[in-house]
């Protein structure tokens, strides 16, 4: 496996998250929200890097910490994004957050997609519902490196039309001429 960058977590203090601020909250569906975050420490934010598909540990101190895929592409340097479905204690607290609120993050963690091995090939990305979060990061990475790959196809489904996330992105993918975007709903 290629080297996984760990910028963002201090090796000496792997358990300690870094304070971050909620820049923006986007209501994706009735029970999914996307949060755009930036570390409060500016130099950390500048050096922060991750690979498409990696995850982060998002804390609302007091409620707890949980793992979420980073849903923004590595090329997005202004902020990083998590998309969260409201289900339990931590995600409920996350859904209470508003722009300006403080959270804490340990990231990046986990593995990436072996995108280097895919170079020159046609790629089909298939995702559904909130499962689209890491794939959004991946797909946007692929778009950023469009020339390295052959055909790009994205197949995205959700339970109902109201459960489709990333509507703005979907519209752009739909409009994009060099990608094939297919959506479907279960019902």
């Amino acid at each position: 496996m290629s080297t996984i960058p760990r910028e963002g977590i201090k090796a000496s203090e792997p358990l300690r998250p870094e304070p971050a601020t909620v820049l923006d909250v986007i209501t994706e569906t009735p029970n999914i929200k996307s949060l755009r975050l930036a570390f409060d420490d500016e130099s950390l934010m500048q050096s922060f890097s991750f690979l498409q598909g990696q995850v982060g540990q998002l804390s609302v101190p007091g409620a707890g910490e949980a793992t979420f895929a980073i849903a923004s592409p590595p090329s997005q340097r202004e902020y990083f994004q998590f998309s969260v479905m409201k289900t339990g204690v931590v995600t409920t607290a996350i859904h209470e957050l508003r722009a300006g609120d403080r959270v804490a993050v340990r990231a990046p963690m986990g593995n990436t997609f072996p995108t280097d091995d895919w170079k020159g090939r046609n790629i089909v990305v298939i995702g559904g519902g909130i499962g689209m979060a890491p794939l959004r990061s991946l797909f946007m990475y692929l778009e950023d490196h469009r020339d390295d790959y052959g055909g790009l196809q994205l197949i995205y489904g959700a339970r109902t039309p109201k459960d489709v996330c990333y509507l703005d992105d979907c519209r752009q993918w739909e409009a994009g001429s060099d990608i094939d975007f297919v959506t479907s709903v279960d019902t």
Partner: protein
Amino acid sequence: MRIGVFICECGTNIAATVMTQKVADAALALRDVYHSESIQYTCSDPGQRTVMAAVQKHNLDRVVIAACSPRMHETTFRRTVAKAGVNPFMMEMVNIREHCSWIHDDTDEATEKAIDLMAMGVAKVREEVPLFTSKVPVTSEVLVIGGGVAGIQAALDIADAGIPVTLVEREPTLGGNMARLDKTFPTLDCSSCILTPRMVEVKHNQDIRLIVNAEVEAVRGYIGNFEADIRKKATCVDEEKCTGCYICVEKCPSKAPDEFNAGVGESKAISIPLPQAVPLVASLRKEHCRRYIKGKCGVCEKVCPADAIDYEQEDRIFTDKFGAIVVATGYELFDWKTAYPNLGGGHYPDVITAMQYERMLSASGPTEGHIRRPSDGAEPRNIVFISCVGSRDESIGRPFCCNVGCMYLAKQAILTKEHIPDSQSYIFYMDMRAVGKDYEQFYRRAQRDAGAIYLRGRVGKIYPLDGKLMVMGADTLSGQQLEVAADLVVLATGFTASDGAAELAQRLNIPYDQFDFLSESHPKLRPVETTTGGIFLAGTCQGPKDIPDTVAQASAAAAKVIGLVSRDEMETSPMVAEVNHMRCIGCWKCIEVCPYKAIEKQKLRDGRQVAIIIESLCQGCGICNVACPPSVVSLRGYTDNQLISEVVEVLR
């Protein structure tokens, strides 16, 4: 999360003892509090506008208002925040008036406490989630239980508003206890004269369905949507056919006690309780009927010209839907005999109750208005009245006042003088209670005009001597022992709850007190409501009272009912219980303890059985919450975590 905190000064009600600005300043130090201020009168129009403006300016999503009791203004402030775009249930009221400023003197300490209370409110509102009311349809028909004067008044008032009423009476006729009275204090107008027309009015009112000889057997449902089973008892008489001609009564060979006349005189197994009975139909009491005791008779059937006798008649059960219920089940008189052996314990025939005396006074009574000693039929000269028999007597566990004894003894003394001009009345009393309008004058009249001798003291003993009854007692005013030779002794027996009141209360899920009188929701602010929505009280079922109070309460209950059922649908509170199905272990403790039968078992798709709350039935009482072993039933707006947060905050 952005919380706003508003501290009400309530003029000087709060601000004189609590430094409200200091409380507001302290709020700003709390997590997620983005705005706080002290407002002179928060409930006033400018006060509410200040709150709304702050909500909008600071983009608040939760509000804490520290002011008076939520009983006073919770609804007001819910509306206020809702107008500003906040879910009304994300507003938490903190009581710093009744719970703080009004009960403390020390400003520093009261301020400290107000800060703690406010911080607890903030802690609680942090855990709040938006709640939404829902609407349920309302059935317009009303059930009135009891056909005494209270039930009659309530039924007529409700029917006057064009609302259909079902009036259920246990006895064969309307009228209740009032129908047995001769005259009423303090005006001395004839009881029948004022009541009978109202009874007839009930009979003829097309919006009232009258069911006599009937009892409410079961009640299900909830405010706006009750369902009641009414059992109509078999009387062997077809009410449709009976004309009330009295022929069967005259020919009936089976004697029976005369309950309507309180045992004065005799009745028959088939009878009509009184000539003014509504409905005027006969009814047969099987327990006294020769046909049922000895197996042969049939006289009434033979003589009935209307062919109304039906020995095969069986009990029938009606089931109907009602939007509201008025309980007007009245009272009974205290059975004094075992409690007071010193008064003869029922062994002396010439010691009678005031109700028996009342029946003697009545022109339509068994003695046709003549006062006669039961023992020998002689007209008495010296009559001793004894008040508070079974009232205000801790020693027999009956500490309360009957509210009417003083006045009806005064009335009977006056009437006695009218009936027997050379008679002398003696009244043993504890204290004179004449608190109603014109009552004091009426009592003076008994003394002055009727010459009644009032003796303040309890009677110790009654014993017979030479054909008279010797009444021994103490006159506590003069400190002397007294002995009065009486021809007749009349006891003012107190009120007890009517027979079966507690059982009925259990069927209706309404509370009752230790004497089985039904309990109102709040003695001052909700005097005709019960704690169960949609069930109201009228008259003496709630406690002893006189006729004016009874009628007033009945009309009040009617007004409440009309307000309720004249709506097509009503909002239900969202602050009801909720089950976390994921964690329900299916132990059914909640179902066992629920007083409103608001919890049911439900099978989930995975086959697990869990408890579900029927929200429209749930009253949010919280009993299921504490009975639930894994605490998966919670009360919305009062979840465990909300309460824990409050406690943690105050212990901080």
